[in-house]
């Protein structure tokens, strides 16, 4: 890695002033499992690193019946994986966390880092978007809450401006009779970037036969993780049957916009969106 200067702010305020002062030549360091790799491969060479892991209070996972789930941006992926709250109440997020990297990576990587690094294949993004998550962003002068589905603006890009920091992720309390599934399709079982990542979350009517609401989120098949809005619309309020399933899967695939890269061709990815949306919905119906 090229040399850099290193800072360890002890508070959010200190971190924000530093980031503002260093005017875009600084990168935030949390887990470092993406950042340091990029720096070692000389894709980027920031002059300054601001290590925010020392800031207290940003790594907690809290749940209340009233407010739902609050995840500090510095919570590690292992924290998400080990959290009983998440395993019991938001199993789709538990599954997504387990799919990320390896144990060694999960032990240091943070959920905030996964989101702010904004890979189109970010492992936690589809599940969190399906759960209706929002991001709390702070700057010295204000704080704002942005829906996670609006957080990503391009590959590696988010709405975060210089001098702003992601501090918390909110996940609302799930409506009763909700079920969700996350499928990651990749060549190897572990230690792989997704070729396609599909998160489906649905809220069923009383008898569990039709969808009151449904969210279908596609990962790794567009410049950003994205909801398949047209597919969701035709499924909403309907009873799932084979022909609706085909249509939903087809529309989801139409709404994807994958590229051809070393892992797969665009054609294959579009096909896999269909396959995995179908599988995810079927799996969810059987839960």
């Amino acid at each position, binding site marked *: 890695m090229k040399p850099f200067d290193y800072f360890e702010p002890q508070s959010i305020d200190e971190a924000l002033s530093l980031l503002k002062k260093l005017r875009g030549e600084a990168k935030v360091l949390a887990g470092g499992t993406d950042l340091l790799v990029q720096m070692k491969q000389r894709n980027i060479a920031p002059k300054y690193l601001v290590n925010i892991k020392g800031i207290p209070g940003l790594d907690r996972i809290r749940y209340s019946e009233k407010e739902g789930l609050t995840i500090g941006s510095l919570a590690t992926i292992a924290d998400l994986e080990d959290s009983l709250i998440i395993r019991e109440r938001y199993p789709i997020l538990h599954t997504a966390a387990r799919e990320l990297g390896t144990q060694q990576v999960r032990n240091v990587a943070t959920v905030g880092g996964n989101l702010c690094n904004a890979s189109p294949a970010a492992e936690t993004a589809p599940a969190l978007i399906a759960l209706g998550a929002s991001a709390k962003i702070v700057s010295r002068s204000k704080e704002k809450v942005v829906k996670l589905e609006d957080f990503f603006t391009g590959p590696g890009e988010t709405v975060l401006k210089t001098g702003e920091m992601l501090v918390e992720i909110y996940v609302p309390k799930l409506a009763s009779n909700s079920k969700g599934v996350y499928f990651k399709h990749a060549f190897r079982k*572990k230690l792989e970037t997704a070729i396609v990542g599909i998160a489906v979350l649905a809220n069923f009517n009383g008898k569990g036969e039709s969808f009151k609401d449904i969210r279908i989120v596609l990962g790794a098949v567009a410049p950003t993780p994205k909801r398949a809005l047209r597919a969701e619309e035709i499924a909403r309020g309907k009873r799932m049957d084979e022909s609706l399933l085909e249509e939903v899967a087809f529309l989801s695939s139409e709404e994807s916009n994958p590229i051809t890269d070393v892992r797969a061709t665009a054609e294959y990815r579009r096909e896999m969106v269909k396959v995995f949306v179908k599988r995810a919905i079927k799996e969810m119906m059987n839960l």
Partner: protein
Amino acid sequence: MKHQIRLNVNGADYDLLVEPRKTLLDVIRNDLGLIGTKKGCNTGECGACTVIMDGKAVNACLVLAVQVKEKKIMTIEGLAESEKLHPLQEAFIHHGAIQCGYCTPGMIMSAKALLDKKPNPEEGEIKEAIAGNLCRCTGYLSIIEAIKSAAKTERSV
């Protein structure tokens, strides 16, 4: 600009002056002379550099030395108690789980981190724990057997 740091490795404290860009891997190998931990891919994908940091397996190549602070680091050198090998080391030898030996320190540290948390792991849990440690020689079966066997030995003590 170099930073003054104190690292606790295998129970001992070391005071060092390091550049921020030096990883924990660089420092333990080059500054502390603990060459048991290996540099493989240097990008967190092979696990050869796995050490235990505050009880958790981590890739030392992805941790900056300046980030470590008071966290306790254990490397492969910290496993044996003077002449007596750790049950994991014994089991690896006994089960032929070591061929070229390059993945071994990292593999054992991942296994140790697992057994410290789950003394009676199922095969699936063992596989998950070593999923981040690549081995080109053994085909992993002997490694999994060794870990199962070491777990049993430790439980019987």
